[in-house]
């Protein structure tokens, strides 16, 4: 073929940081604080529900379920999110289940973005937003950010959306991981926003089961109908068994909502401790962490350690990326360069930061601390 075999929509979206960094971590790391997944087990009640579901005689659990979401799951999601958003939700039209929040994002961009459309992306951003907007033919427009938006900040965004009749795609996968008594505010609950917002959630982040790939979208039918069209022409159904078990997990949480034994109460408590532990380790060795108000990531300034990785002028690769690669190969500690979360032209704006994931067992965080301490010692000892 004289022209390329692949479609033009793949132009500029072929590079992916994870493919490279996941491989590096698998090859070299002894302590992996890179990719965002917990290395501790999912909650017992969920594992028990999975085992129970599979040991039963219900072999229809292994066959297709309703394409837009397994009925028990969409029902409980509608109940829970209806309560959280303060409105009555129809499980059949206001909720759609997807293969992880990732596929929810894909459906949104494909359903709503056309050539000529602009999509505002706040930097730093989860890296898939940019290629997904481009694949849909849209133009990403970048503006810089801050974590756990206060209500006032969200209201500012809401006012602009209403004024310009723009849609809001709200990725809230870490909605339960909020610290220091802060409140996660759902933009869809602000005035004028329900009708123009698709909120995205994830079982992987909610229940520490990233490998189950169950996500969902919640929004008005006028928007969800287009997501359904996209979904039915791309994957059509999501796996049944995982949906059944997630539904049971949510049922349990709905009954315990706000109570001390709720997983949604316990998990952020545990994570806050882990956050503080990692922060302490990093501060002790001279890396400067930015204390996160939510999620299970933190970003740290590694300027003190730059001497280990000399700068290469005119290099194509941002400094922090080279640093992170050197660190995993030489110290066995995996993390992700912050430039991965910036668009091309802005990658060098924040090139002395790396991102650590602290959703890790005690032993892992201790091992990370050991590496960092040893490293610091090597630097100070002549």
């Amino acid at each position, binding site marked *: 073929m004289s022209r390329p*075999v692949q479609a033009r929509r*793949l132009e500029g979206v072929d590079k992916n940081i994870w493919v490279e960094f996941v491989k590096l971590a698998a090859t070299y790391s002894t302590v992996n604080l890179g990719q965002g997944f917990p290395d501790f087990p999912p909650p017992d009640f969920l594992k028990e529900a*999975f085992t129970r579901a599979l040991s039963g005689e219900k072999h229809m659990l292994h066959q*297709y379920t309703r394409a837009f979401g397994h009925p028990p799951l969409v029902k409980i999601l509608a109940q829970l999110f209806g309560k959280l958003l303060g409105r009555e939700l129809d499980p059949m039209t206001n909720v759609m289940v997807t293969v992880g929040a990732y596929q929810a994002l894909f459906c949104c961009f494909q359903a709503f973005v056309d050539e000529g459309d602009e999509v505002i992306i706040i930097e730093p951003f989860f890296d898939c937003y940019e290629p997904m907007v481009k694949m849909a033919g849209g133009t990403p427009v970048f503006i810089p950010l801050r974590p756990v938006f206060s209500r006032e900040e969200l209201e500012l965004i809401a006012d602009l959306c209403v004024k310009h009749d723009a849609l809001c795609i709200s990725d809230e996968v870490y909605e339960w991981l909020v610290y220091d008594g802060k409140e996660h505010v759902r933009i869809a609950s602000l005035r004028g926003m329900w009708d123009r917002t698709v909120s995205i959630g994830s079982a992987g982040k909610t229940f520490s089961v990233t490998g189950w790939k169950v996500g969902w979208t919640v929004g008005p039918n006028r928007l969800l*109908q287009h997501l359904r069209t996209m979904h039915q022409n791309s994957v059509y159904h999501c796996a049944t068994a995982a949906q059944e078990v997630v539904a049971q997990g949510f049922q349990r949480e709905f009954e315990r909502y706000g109570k001390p034994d709720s997983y949604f109460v316990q998990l952020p408590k545990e994570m806050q401790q882990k956050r503080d532990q990692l922060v302490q380790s990093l501060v002790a060795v001279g890396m400067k962490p930015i204390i996160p108000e939510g999620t299970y990531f933190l970003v740290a300034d590694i300027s003190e350690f730059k001497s280990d990785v000399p700068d290469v002028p005119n290099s194509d690769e941002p400094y922090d990326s080279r640093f992170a690669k050197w660190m995993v190969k030489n110290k066995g500690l995996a993390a992700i360069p912050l430039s991965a979360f910036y668009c091309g032209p802005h990658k060098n704006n924040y090139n002395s930061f790396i991102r650590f994931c602290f959703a890790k067992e005690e032993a892992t965080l201790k091992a990370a601390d050991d590496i960092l301490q040893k490293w610091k010692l090597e630097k100070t000892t002549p």
Partner: protein
Amino acid sequence: MTFWKKECSLRQWPLDTKTQDELKALTTMCGIKLVSKRYCHHWVEFTKVAADPSIVNLGQGLPDISPPSYVKEELANVAAVDRLNQYTRGFGHPSLVKALSQVYERVCGRKIDPLTDILVTVGGYGSLFSTIQALIEEGDEVIIIEPFYDCYEPMVKMAGAKPVFIPLRNKNDGNCASSADWVLDPGELAKKFNSKTKAIILNTPHNPIGKVFTREELQVIADLCIKHDTLCISDEVYEWLVYKGKKHIKIATLPGMWERTITIGSAGKTYSVTGWKLGWSIGPQNLIKHLQVVHQNTLYTCPTPLQEALARAFWIDYKRMDDPDCYFYSLSRELESKRDRMAQLLREVGLKPVIPDGGYFMIADVSTLNVDLSDVDGNQPYDYKFVKWMIKSKKLSAIPLSAFCGPETKGQFEKYIRFCFIKEDSTLDAAEVILKNWTKQTD
């Protein structure tokens, strides 16, 4: 609940608001897409009626038989392993792609690299989507053989390309019809290829007819692909469901074809676990790499526990690929007797079944019954009216064949309906009761 899939743009209906709303609610509930807007309002009755549990459902392609016990056990075993609840490799869980490469190396007789030549997707459906998004775009034409699995057309259109249809034609109208009688006219096929033809979608064994393309038939397609430098998207999800005397041949194994073919497979069809939604695309690195780009920008990774369980099941069967008890062969033996039973029952009633050489569907010519369908209202193809009448008066459901073809050929296919026979004996028993009593009822 029966789920029928058809594709429709809801916004184009010339229906009153109440019917539109009702239909929208039903479609979202049933998960159906609706085809041709002209027939839309009749689907309301269709789906309401078919949702009735007293109806014997031989419509949707859903096994109601149990998957093999070791498959269910492996998933239960996997559920107990903590680390298998987290993300795995995006393009396919390592143990699964390794198992797939071993099985298919044996079948294809060539080396298959698990990391570069395979992509694991959300069902065969996900593979079709990734392939079409990766390799098809505006300005391209894609040849689709009719009747076709209904998602091919909307996926090609969504990629901005133009579907070009060519029908299988029945060369034998006699009483012992076989799926082998349905053939492509080579001259007609050749005319469909031109410089814009980017790909042809092949489905063998074929849904709905059950045709298993012969080596000679595949060679005709291969010759044209090579001549016009066209890709081949080969949907082989029913590859193991081939009946006595027939052999499934992979077009990718014909000379000159490996480098231009993506072959699609499905765990759902291989192991009767449609609800696991795992499939795979196999092909040369220079094509698969583009599918991987689509995958990394759409859902990134497939569920881990299901992939691990599937890998373990594959190892069990890989080790006994020389043994007749291997599930790849035993399932088709089990289904062959169901196929024959189904065919016998349909003949007794006066329907003319087309015996499939593969797959788990059977089509039957219903025009022979000359049923008076004048009270079934509406300007619809004969098969739609027949199915509606059959659901209502016989409590048996099937799918009208014109649902699987483009607008030009409805006339050719409207005397056929499709039955699914991957059903438990009790379901087939219930169908038998209905069919044996067919002529006794008054209308």
